[in-house]
């Protein structure tokens, strides 16, 4: 192993409970210089992983939130015609109007390529964009370079970014794209793991509160016909809400009082189902 790669070994971060398996995968992907594609239910920490890598390896994190209408070129660079037009009319800026390069603004991928140091580039929810987006990105991933058509210049990655790509598992990405990535599916944490996660976020938490909330949380997750099941994020917010309520006692949860259901269930139908279940069956 080269000295360099041992320096950039990912070992976890302060607010992120790392599964050792996932740590291996991250390290292998970094060593092989391959993007890591993460799938899994919402709230399993796909996005958090990128934050954790950036924090742990002290690299800047660049986040590209993919939108459905996005074109790849927007993520690479943008040619700011309006400013140039404005400058050419008024001539009061320091920019040189005849030099188009001064009006090129880097997009997120462009920023990662031109950064002074190695960065973590998170491409979040790539499945939102259409297949063209992914196909176009293949070239960029392969070459680690892209062309700026307006000035006929090729931008090469100065430091190869650590790519973390997330997808929400609704549809599979195209084969050639998958071929260029390493893949991992993050399973929903089990109660033991969840306990660790809760402890990381609330080091001071009362033991009984943690146990009761987690137990209640997993039972609520099992409710049928719920469209969006509460995930880690909801649990953490819920604990925060319960902590903030002076009247709340952890014992109540075991008795069947489940306050602040709205923190866990965001869709009105889901909320109804959960509220009914709690009231009628006395789940707990």
């Amino acid at each position, binding site marked *: 192993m080269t000295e360099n790669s041992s320096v950039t070994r990912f070992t976890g971060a302060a607010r992120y409970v790392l599964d050792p398996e996932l740590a291996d995968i991250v390290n*292998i992907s970094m060593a092989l210089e*391959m993007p890591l594609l993460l799938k899994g239910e919402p709230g399993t920490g796909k996005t958090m992983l990128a934050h954790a890598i950036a924090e742990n390896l002290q690299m800047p994190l660049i986040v590209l939130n993919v939108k459905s209408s996005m074109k790849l070129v927007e993520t690479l660079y943008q040619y700011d015609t309006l400013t140039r*037009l404005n400058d050419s009319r008024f001539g009061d800026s320091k920019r040189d109007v005849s030099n188009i390069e001064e009006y090129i603004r880097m997009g997120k991928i462009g920023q990662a390529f031109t950064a002074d140091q190695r960065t973590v580039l998170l491409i979040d929810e790539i499945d939102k964009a259409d297949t063209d987006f992914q196909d176009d990105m293949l070239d960029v991933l392969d070459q680690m370079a892209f062309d700026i058509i307006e000035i006929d210049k090729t931008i090469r990655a100065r430091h190869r970014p650590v790519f973390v790509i997330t997808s929400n598992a609704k549809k599979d990405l195209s084969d050639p794209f998958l071929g260029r990535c390493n893949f991992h*599916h993050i399973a929903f944490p089990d109660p033991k793991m969840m306990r660790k996660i809760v402890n990381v976020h609330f080091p001071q938490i009362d033991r009984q509160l943690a146990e009761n909330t987690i137990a209640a949380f997993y039972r609520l997750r099992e409710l049928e016909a719920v469209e969006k099941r509460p995930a880690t994020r909801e649990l953490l917010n819920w604990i925060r809400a319960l902590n903030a309520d002076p009247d709340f006692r952890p014992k109540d949860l075991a008795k069947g009082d489940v306050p602040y259901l709205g923190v866990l269930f965001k869709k009105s139908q889901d909320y109804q189902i959960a509220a009914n279940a709690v009231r009628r069956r006395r789940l707990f």
Partner: protein
Amino acid sequence: MFIDFFYKLKDVGIPVKPTAFLTLHRALDMGLVQSLGEFYTASRSILVKSERYFDLFDQVFAHHFEGAEMPDGEAFELDEMAKVMLEAWLQDPKTLAEAMGIDENKLRRMSPDELIDYFKERLKEQTGRHDGGGRWIGTGGTSPVGHSGYHPGGMRVGGVSRNRSALKVAMDRRYRDYALSGPLRQSMMGEALKRLRHLVPSGPRDQVNIDETLYQTMKNGGEIEIVFERSLKDRLNVILAIDNGGWSMEPYIPVVQTLFNHARSQFKVLETYFFHNTIYDYLWGDAARYKKPKRIDELAAADPATRLILVGDASMAPYELMATDGSIHIEERSGQPSIERLKFLARTFRHAVWLNPVPQHMWGYTRTIAAIAQIFAMFELSIDGLEKAIAHLMAR
């Protein structure tokens, strides 16, 4: 190294690629893998690209490195066959009972699970495939169960019938590959569906039109005049109704599913419904056709510019289409035969098509296809047919 392992993965049906295998070796060469545990994570994340195959991968890995038992492909096949037989039993208990030479009433008393087990037992009696033999499953033989046989009470297991009214699937599992050939079709479907994006200006005027801005600025003697235009938005409403019921559609559901997966992200408003064979009083919002009924009459209130896309094989018993009580659901008794409902839909939505997975040259053999094709413009569920269908939908 590990070439056996690689081929074993391939054999059980995990789509592993040679390039990924080379990447794995690169990882090994770099000394990144020090233990079997690390080899497990590394090989899985590099070779396997979908969580659907994780389970299979685990089994092969356990077999190869720890001598565990190989995943039992045959058990799976038996499962599938037994399921087909269960379907057959539900359709027509008498024929099946006779074919198997057992008392119909005995079968009748069993629960579905017991039935499946029972069928599996019977299937196990036959080891391996045989065609033309005298045991009771195979092809072209004298046994009562199997296809192309001539036993009078015989029934079909596997093989494809011309008029889609006999059992299919079981032995040959010829559609097993649909799942894997899916992606190819998916991207093609996506291409075709993109044409449905009917771009019309809407939304706020928030996009700068560069060309027009320059032109107006020049016209203005150099004073900047910025011209905004509306961003383009998709305004097409689409109602997609899929026949997901019964075994006659079963081989096509994966294909329809790919189409439907793609459709979801394509349009501004997309409503998806399900039906079984044909439409009576209700469409269903859930795939189980149970929880979310939608009255057909309510659709009259929908925007008439909505595009209606029906997907189904349109193959059924004629009475299901023509009779006033054709529906198998007791609550659907409005007294209108399904064909009237279809006509109503065709009147409500000027832009409607029926996509049929049955190849076009076979349409003439099934009466109900011909009848429905008179109501809706019918197209084959293929790239070609899809293109034509979309051209039809976009016509004024």
